[in-house]
């Protein structure tokens, strides 16, 4: 006996779509934590995914990092020059890059490159029933596909952030060297004396959280992709948009929390 279809009211929409989504996302995340520590571990697949994450974003992170450092320095110079304080540039730039720019920009790049890729890859595996096929060959697809990718991205993102911080400072140094003729040693000495352990620690925590956000969003979207090629495109697209949005929200919260410790 077909029951009457749901009435299209705001309340029903909320109940069937928004709240249901939140519930499902929470379950997905809990499942991740339930399975990540339970053997058997998919070591090979995780290593392969680490390589993938690094390889996919390496070139873009290098280029963007260098340019960001250079351009940011260049743009900051006039306002410092007004007070005759261009000697503060290395310190200012280091703080900006380590505290904010490196984690944020790297994670946005990783969201664009890796997050969309995870969404599309798992999405197409889902719609062509490959995920189900893994299940019937008595493998746990969640572990093989989701856990490996989330672990890999969460671990690789901090590495990429550190790398970008370094490249960004290098870009800044090139610019400072051109204009103020500061030596390499002086630049980095000044730069590092301005940043604290808390800055670095907070950035690494941020990088871990953003990496987790990106990969879990990508996996969730792909894993729940709906039938058809549209489903795959949508999974990739939503993965990027949602994870970028979440990264900014998290940034806001984390900055507030970290400021309590300063």
């Amino acid at each position, binding site marked *: 006996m077909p029951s009457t279809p749901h009435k299209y009211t705001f309340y029903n929409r909320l109940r069937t779509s928004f709240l249901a989504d939140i519930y499902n996302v929470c379950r997905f995340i809990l499942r991740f934590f339930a399975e990540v520590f339970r053997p058997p571990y998919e070591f090979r697949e995780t290593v392969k995914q680490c390589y993938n994450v690094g390889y996919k974003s390496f070139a873009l992170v290098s280029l963007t990092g260098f340019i960001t450092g250079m351009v940011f320095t260049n743009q900051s110079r006039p306002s410092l020059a007004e007070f005759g304080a261009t000697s503060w540039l290395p310190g200012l730039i280091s703080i900006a890059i380590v505290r904010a720019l490196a984690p944020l920009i790297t994670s946005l790049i990783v969201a664009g490159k890796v997050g969309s890729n995870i969404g599309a890859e798992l999405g197409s595996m889902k719609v062509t029933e490959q995920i189900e096929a893994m299940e*019937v060959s008595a493998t746990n697809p969640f572990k093989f596909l989701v856990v490996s990718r989330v672990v890999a991205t969460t671990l690789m993102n901090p590495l990429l952030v550190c790398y970008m911080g370094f490249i960004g400072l290098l870009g800044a140094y090139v610019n400072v060297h051109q204009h103020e003729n500061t030596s390499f040693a002086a630049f980095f000495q000044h730069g590092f004396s301005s940043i604290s352990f808390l800055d670095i620690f907070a950035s690494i925590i941020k990088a871990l959280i953003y990496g987790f956000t990106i990969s879990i969003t990508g996996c969730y979207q792909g894993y729940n992709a709906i039938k058809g090629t549209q489903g795959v495109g949508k999974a990739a697209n939503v993965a990027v948009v949602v994870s970028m949005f979440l990264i900014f929200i998290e940034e806001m919260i984390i900055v507030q929390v970290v400021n309590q410790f300063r």
Partner: protein
Amino acid sequence: MRKSPVDIDKQNAVVRIRGLYKSFDTLDVLMGMDLDLYKGENIVVLGRSGSGKSVLIKLIAGLLKPDKGTIRVAGEEVDRLSPKELQELRLKIGFLYQGSALYDSMTVRENLEFPLVRNSPPLTRKERDAAVYEVLENVGLAQSIDKMPAELSGGQKKRVGIARTLILHPDIMLYDEPTAGLDPITSSDIITLINEVQQKYQTSSVIITHDLTCAKATGDRLALITDGKFSREGSFEEVFRTGDTEAKKFYDYNFIIDP
């Protein structure tokens, strides 16, 4: 293509379905279905597109949960099993997907090794290679071992799909439209393969098809789904030599041309 006689153990039902109901939201798909699949038997399931054939075998493999009714596979009630028990049961089930569902980021070899490395007691490289060669040889694709699925034709994919399920020597095979979209010659190869599998490994199979040639050549028994139930069941002749209009439509379409 005549089928050579097979041993069917009518006392021993490897799959037993009673009063099975399944619906999605407002769509009722299966409504009170009963089925016995005996040891060593090939049963062909016929039915119109959307009648719930794929849903039926997914229920058997425990991929979906029934709303009502029982499904016993190899003596176990599928929807009562713990994830671990279900995983063990699935080792006895081979599932050929309608779209083959090969892992497209892996080569044919890796596709075949995938169930092997995860589930059997640790094998040496050599033993694994031997197992992979054996099943690929069985489906006549040994030369494609290092190809990617994207480089294979539809029929080759189906055969690799069959090989991938055979590698764990399942007791029960579930074929979802094994000959759909294939040319007559490839189809007849697959039909031969299905019968060989039955003979060689003593498997019991559920074969979903719209292709009555395949149905006649592989099925020991046929069952026709109408309105979420099996409306007719028996040998090819028993199902089609009747006044049943649904059965007649099926038959007429498949054999409309007199050569």
